[in-house]
């Protein structure tokens, strides 16, 4: 029951946190910024609208948003949110989880290609390219976690007698993991310096350009899916860095969401103080994250033995 409540809270709170990013960016720009609940208003507004469909599209275009929404919502089922055990957990679920994201991406990409727009094709090509590179980092992180903890399930990583936490024995090594995980977060969720969600030129976009032709409730589903995905990665990092285990679930949840908020603030700060990278530098950025975890994985041979 506790798990389901935590899952529900996570789903409901997902649109709140991106508001933090906007606030931080506004602060750096010396502006007041939109209200904190802006994303809720956006989603509700979109749900009330109808849609315009391009004559070039087929059923694939209409399926894309639904699939990406469902896969992102399902991924959160495996995450121990705020200390509650995950709704769904079994040995090997991490592999399922990242492949679910892969399925969501597959449909987002083919929905983009369905519009016959050159811009969306461009975005799609970039998305699959960068995602492939990020996949190498993600699975190397799983290798490290398996070496440290012997688990293959998201819930078990952070539970039991030997949880993965930066405050434990392998903390120094996990610092490397956290940095590269943050880089993967930026990549997978189309944030600066990989992609700029606020840019105005379609030629420079990755994710935003792929969804140019979606409108109304379909667009709202895509947005919600993106919020869930960002929340997933933020929760992933939070689980590693959470310092204390409170006995009271409320205090624990408060701390958990507090840290998660700080990660969103970190995203906002990154976006405010860095410019986006040139497209040909993005692979280097992602491969840096891979190099970090590969190094950390080799270090595990010493730490474990």
């Amino acid at each position: 029951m506790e798990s389901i409540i935590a899952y529900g809270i996570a789903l409901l709170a997902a649109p709140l946190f991106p508001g933090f990013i906007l606030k931080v960016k506004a602060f750096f720009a010396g502006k007041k910024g939109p209200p904190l609940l802006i994303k809720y208003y956006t989603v509700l507004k979109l749900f009330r609208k109808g849609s315009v469909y391009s004559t070039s599209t087929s059923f694939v275009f209409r399926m894309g948003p639904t699939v990406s929404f469902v896969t992102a919502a399902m991924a959160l089922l495996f995450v121990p949110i705020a200390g509650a055990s995950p709704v769904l957990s079994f040995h090997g679920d991490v592999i399922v989880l990242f492949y679910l994201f892969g399925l969501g991406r597959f449909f987002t990409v083919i929905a983009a290609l369905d519009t016959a727009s050159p811009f969306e094709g461009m975005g799609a090509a970039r998305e699959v390219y960068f995602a492939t590179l990020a996949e190498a980092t993600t699975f190397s992180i799983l290798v490290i976690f398996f070496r440290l903890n012997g688990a293959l399930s998201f819930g078990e990583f952070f539970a039991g007698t030997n949880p993965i936490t930066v405050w434990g024995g392998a903390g120094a090594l996990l610092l490397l993991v956290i940095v590269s995980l943050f880089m993967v977060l930026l990549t997978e969720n189309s944030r600066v310096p990989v992609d700029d969600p606020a840019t105005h030129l379609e030629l420079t976009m990755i994710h935003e350009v792929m969804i140019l032709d979606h409108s109304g409730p379909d667009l709202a589903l895509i947005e919600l899916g993106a919020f869930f995905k960002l929340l997933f990665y933020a929760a992933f990092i939070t689980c590693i860095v959470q310092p204390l285990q409170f006995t009271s679930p409320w205090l624990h949840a408060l701390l958990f969401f507090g840290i998660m908020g700080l990660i969103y603030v970190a995203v906002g700060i990154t976006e405010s103080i860095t410019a986006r990278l040139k497209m040909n530098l993005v692979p280097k950025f992602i491969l840096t994250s891979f190099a970090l975890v590969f190094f950390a994985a080799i270090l595990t041979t010493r730490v474990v033995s």
Partner: protein
Amino acid sequence: MDTYLFSLVVILVGGILPLFTYKKFTVMKAACVIITAIGSFTGLYAALSFLIHPVENAVISWPWLHHFEIALQMDAMAAFFLIPIFFICPLATLYSFHYMHHEKQSGKTAISYFFSAVLFVSMALLTTANNMLTFALAWEIMSLSSFFLVVFDFRNKETRKAGYLYFIFAQAGALFLFAAFAVIYSQTGTLSFDSISAMPENMKLIAFVLAFMGLGSKAGVFPLHIWLPHAHPAAPSPVSAVMSGVMIKMGIFGIIRFYMLLAPAGEIYGQIILVAGMISGILGVVYALGVHDIKRLLAYSSVENIGIILLGLGLGMLGVATGNSTMAAFGFAGGLLHVFNHSIFKSLLFMGAGSVIHKAGTGKINELGGLMKTMPVTGKTFLVGAVSISGLPPFNGFVSEFLIYYGAFYGLAHGSSFLLPMLTIISLAVIGGLAASCFTKLVGVAFLGEPRTENAAKASECGIAMRISMVVLALSCIVVGVFPEPFVHIVFRVVSGLPIAATVSPTVFIDLVRNISLVAVLFLGILGITMLLRKGLYSGKPMAKGPTWGCGFTQPTVRMQYTGTSYAMSIVGFFRPFIHSENVYSGIQKIFPGKTTYKTKVSDRAESAILETVVKPVFWVLDKLRWIQHGEIQLYIAYIVLAIVILLLAQ
């Protein structure tokens, strides 16, 4: 065993009959389809009933040419490999009912049916071969019959060239295989399979490497794969479906068979197979991204999937060598299940490719587009195949890749063999990402968007027989993906034949697979609910239609669409040292630019390397020996006499 032999006879009858009835085109095709189906279902029944109730000593043998013995034996692994043969082959035959539509080519079609039947039977015999002679015989019949199928369109020069290339590779591969047999025979002094495991360890390694070269060239292991991207586009699509879906798996079958017969001890076997798997897997899919002919692309994707299968088998062998039973069992199980899964979705994709080529007249994806609307059944089944082959849940490709991942993770626990399992995991992740890129390209460019040419716009849905085959295969992808339990059971039965894997309890497999099944059902359930909610949200809302947003550009043309070339360009560029892409760009010279051209061509590094290092030296040597061939018949006879005399004296 009797049922099995009976099924082979029936299939053979189905192949011989068209030779006499070819004058009645439709009757011939229908009879062949029905008889092949009856034979295959009988065979499928025999294989499945063997797997459910194994019979001890299912052996049969008869003498041949006084000295030799043809011996067949049914065991769990043979029965497992018979399943794709007896499942895919009748569907491919059914598919060809509408694919082979030129009544003028009736005679040729009849011959093609004959060789198809010979191919099916030889593959089945190969799986049950119980001595080296039977194995070699079945192997050669398989290679030759498939060669005749490839050169169906022999009047076309390109087809002949592809056919010869395939022929050379098949025979060179057989040469290696027979060399391995010779090594084994020199040690054991018998053609039987029984005493192979008693060979000394160093000879085992030599025999295994030779056999791997021969079997690997059939399977399409990089860099011995180069016949695949030539032969598959040249062959008719039902033939490509059988060759890529089933026949190349016979190479994999041979590798497992010889590994088990040799029962070697060292870690080197697993290491060889793993490294070969990583190279095939990654470079196969990179080349698949680089080429833009639908059947060439699928051929390279077969190279990739053979790589994934080898990763599974390599983990299994490494697990056996290091005593890691979980890694061994899951590696072998994943590899074997991927054999089965790949046979389903690769045949499906080749059939889809065939109907596209049939109706749109071209297989170049940059000239296609928008087929999802004009060919809905082909398009949807192709989409299912594409998602499956990318290894994504809830389809079948995911289940086998999951098992391989699982085995690899358990390989990490052993300190000494830490690096290879880790590289396996990273390779699998990268292959997964690249495969998704490759098949989004294929589906997105060929089936979605706007048609790029007249021909693509005029394409219409293919014949009912073709559609039925594709729908059956697409449904199989979903069934295996959502309810993998019985299939994993079968695979586990095969794997438990290994001494080490017997220590892994089947409940571990079953629990895992039930969880995958749960996720798949949950996914489909939530997807259904979300779709209903979405429908509710849209009810009574204004829905408008309009052109695609061109970012302010008001004169869009279909030529503006992203092509397969541009889509894959940056990824191909990333792998530049391993893939050679030649770009010719005329550039823009004047202020008001005239016509410019841009050409890009990807050439296979392995092909040019083999050309340089093998073909050219061989030609050089043969050129020096030209004087032997002078055309004087009496001297030729003298050669023969001389050779016999020398041989007699040497004895």
